[in-house]
């Protein structure tokens, strides 16, 4: 249809149409612009953080060689020559099939034979090893330092038994949890945000005649007044309490208006929605073995199998140090329930499955029932054990072994909203029980790796911190995504100062705001 004179006239008239907006419009616009710009900035930061974390994870995983990948002779030769254990080098040709004099690991691979590996006298053994070592080897300063560190390590271990240490940890952490809970309870106050969300309902009830700026303001103001009086009654003296109560009565009796009814309805609705909400959470990241303050050691590659002889060493003078522990993949998934205790604070618990892995370098695989001396007490008979990679008879036999830990955990997290944006900081504890593992432990007395669940602390307490941004907050299924760190507060191995840690990206999804 060709536009006629009529349309032109209408358009001209409509171009003249001019209104003056009410004064609150501009402040609202200004506030929204600021909020949205802040949100964009934050999203950009979260994206960068996630990118960095993802890149880091990829890099760490990339630097690790695949499980069971044999090491080329050249690489190892290069490595061994370059390492501190140069003097200890066990040349493949010499050791293969030979008896290493004085060293009780005789004959290299002995299949189907029961053999006792007895290495009671460390000094004697060292002498023997020295005899077998390349003649040119001298006791360097480095070696002395290393030995000193070993001795120190063993002394510390002897002084602080693992069980006692665990107790201390529990005592330290429990009050923190309680304190955090108490804070949560203190902060409990009615959420006014929910009333804001209920604005459309209020709109429809009082229809269009009221100016928009006033509409949501009234119930909110009343709610705020109520909050203030409640606060006063909580903190003030008895006299003040009485006055406040009177004031409260007055306000309720004087204004039984429709607005009050709306406010009461919305607060009731808010109470209903503040019940438990169900959800699922998934975490993907890296895990590793931290030692004290060194939380994030490097990934394990064939080029850096051995950091220093002290790494993970249990006791004393070990000419063959255990492999460095590299990072591995970690995963977690679980069911959570969450409850709001206030406008900004909520707590959650649930049931999770956690998988952690680390990697170590091992040598030749030995079969046959063998008694291996434990780090400090008794012997354990094992069917399979692995020699130290450095003592491995064949270079080709060296490989990366992935220690895998399967835990079932009960987390308890506190979540606090930061500012006006849907960004949440979480902190909490997680009690985890190891249900299965294939982890190898190192015997510094016999220089072998073996499986021994008794050597591990199956019950672990993890401390968690995280930062989460909520997407689709107004939808039924909001999704929280962000980085999370977890650190095992107790030792993983009873005789080894090492703690499991995990770092990754967590995604949590609420399964609708249903009451349980």
């Amino acid at each position, binding site marked *: 249809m060709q536009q006629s004179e*009529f349309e032109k006239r209408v358009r001209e008239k409509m171009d003249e149409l001019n209104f003056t907006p009410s004064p609150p419009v501009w402040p609202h616009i200004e506030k929204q612009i600021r909020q949205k710009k802040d949100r964009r900035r934050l999203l950009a930061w979260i994206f960068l953080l996630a990118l960095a974390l993802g890149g880091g994870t990829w890099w760490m995983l990339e630097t690790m060689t695949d499980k069971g990948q044999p090491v080329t002779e050249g690489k190892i030769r290069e490595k061994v020559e370059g390492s501190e254990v140069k003097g200890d080098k066990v040349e493949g040709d010499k050791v293969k099939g030979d008896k290493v004099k004085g060293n009780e690991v005789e004959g290299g691979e002995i299949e189907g034979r029961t053999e006792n590996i007895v290495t009671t006298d460390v000094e004697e053994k060292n002498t023997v090893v020295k005899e077998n070592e390349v003649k040119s080897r001298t006791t360097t300063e480095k070696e002395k330092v290393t030995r000193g560190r070993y001795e120190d390590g063993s002394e510390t271990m002897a002084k602080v038994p693992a069980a006692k240490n665990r107790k201390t940890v529990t005592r330290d952490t429990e009050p923190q949890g309680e304190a955090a809970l108490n804070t949560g309870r203190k902060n409990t106050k009615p959420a006014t945000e929910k009333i804001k969300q209920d604005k459309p309902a209020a709109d429809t009830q009082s229809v269009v005649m*009221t100016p928009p700026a006033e509409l949501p303001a009234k119930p909110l103001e009343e709610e705020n007044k109520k909050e203030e009086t409640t606060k006063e009654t909580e903190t003030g003296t008895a006299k003040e309490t009485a006055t406040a109560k009177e004031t409260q009565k007055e306000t309720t009796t004087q204004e039984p208006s429709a607005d009050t009814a709306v406010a009461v309805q919305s607060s009731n609705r808010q109470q209903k929605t503040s019940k438990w909400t169900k959800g699922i959470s998934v975490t993907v990241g890296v895990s590793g073995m931290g030692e004290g303050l060194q939380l994030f050691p490097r990934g394990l590659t064939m080029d850096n199998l051995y950091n220093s002889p002290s790494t993970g060493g249990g006791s004393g003078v070990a000419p063959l140090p255990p492999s460095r522990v590299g990072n591995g993949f970690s995963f977690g998934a679980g069911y959570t329930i969450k409850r709001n205790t206030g406008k900004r604070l909520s707590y959650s618990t649930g049931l999770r499955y956690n998988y952690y892995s680390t990697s170590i370098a091992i040598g030749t695989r030995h079969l046959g029932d063998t008694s291996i001396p434990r780090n400090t007490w008794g012997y354990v008979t094992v069917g399979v054990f692995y020699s130290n990679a450095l003592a491995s008879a064949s270079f080709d036999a060296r490989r990366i072994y992935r220690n895998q830990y399967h835990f079932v955990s009960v987390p308890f997290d506190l979540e606090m909203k930061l500012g006006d944006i849907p960004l949440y900081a979480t902190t909490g504890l997680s009690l985890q029980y190891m249900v299965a593992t294939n982890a190898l432990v190192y015997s510094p007395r016999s220089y072998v790796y073996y499986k021994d669940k008794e050597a591990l602390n199956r019950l672990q307490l993890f401390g968690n911190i995280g930062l989460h941004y909520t997407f689709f907050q107004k939808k039924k299924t909001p999704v929280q995504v962000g980085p999370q760190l977890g650190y095992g507060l107790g030792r993983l191995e009873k005789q080894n100062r090492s703690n499991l840690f995990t770092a990754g990206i967590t995604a949590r999804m609420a399964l609708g705001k249903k009451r349980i």
Partner: protein
Amino acid sequence: MDQHRLVKDCLKGKPAAQKQLYEMFAGPMLGVCYRYTKSVADAEDVLQEGFVKVFLNLHQFKFEGELGGWIRRIMVTTSINFLKKNSRYQAELIFPEEPPLHAVNNDSPEVRMGARELADLIRQLPPGYQTIFNLYAVEGFNHIEIGKILGIQESTSRSQYARARALLIQWIEQQNNDVKTSAYATK
């Protein structure tokens, strides 16, 4: 201050410039929003949302057209989105049984009333008619574009507009006659 500089200052985040831009366009833009909604309050809500979009997307304005036109397009889009989202208006975008088409004596009658009165007449149009009339007659969209915007057939837009136009002309003529009669009576 020229618009170039004003936009640049707004992009730098200067609050004074942002307020100046708002004050410059808020009045006519509220008029645009008013034509699409049923209350001043709703119109102000749309205006607020629209201006937030304007400031957040101002970097996309390349001075290829008029700034006022660009802002106006944002306001129209925001108004349509508001109608689609808001449950109170959803029914109005559903096109019901069409009322009988009235015969129009004069195809393009004179519009003697003021802008506000005419806008109020447009707002009294039956469900769906108001939006289509605004989009076609005032904004200058063609029926294919309107069909895409509202998710309806081009033919539906065309027929709805014809009816809206006829109805509005009828009301305008009626008003013009009333004015004539009252003027005669006073004489």
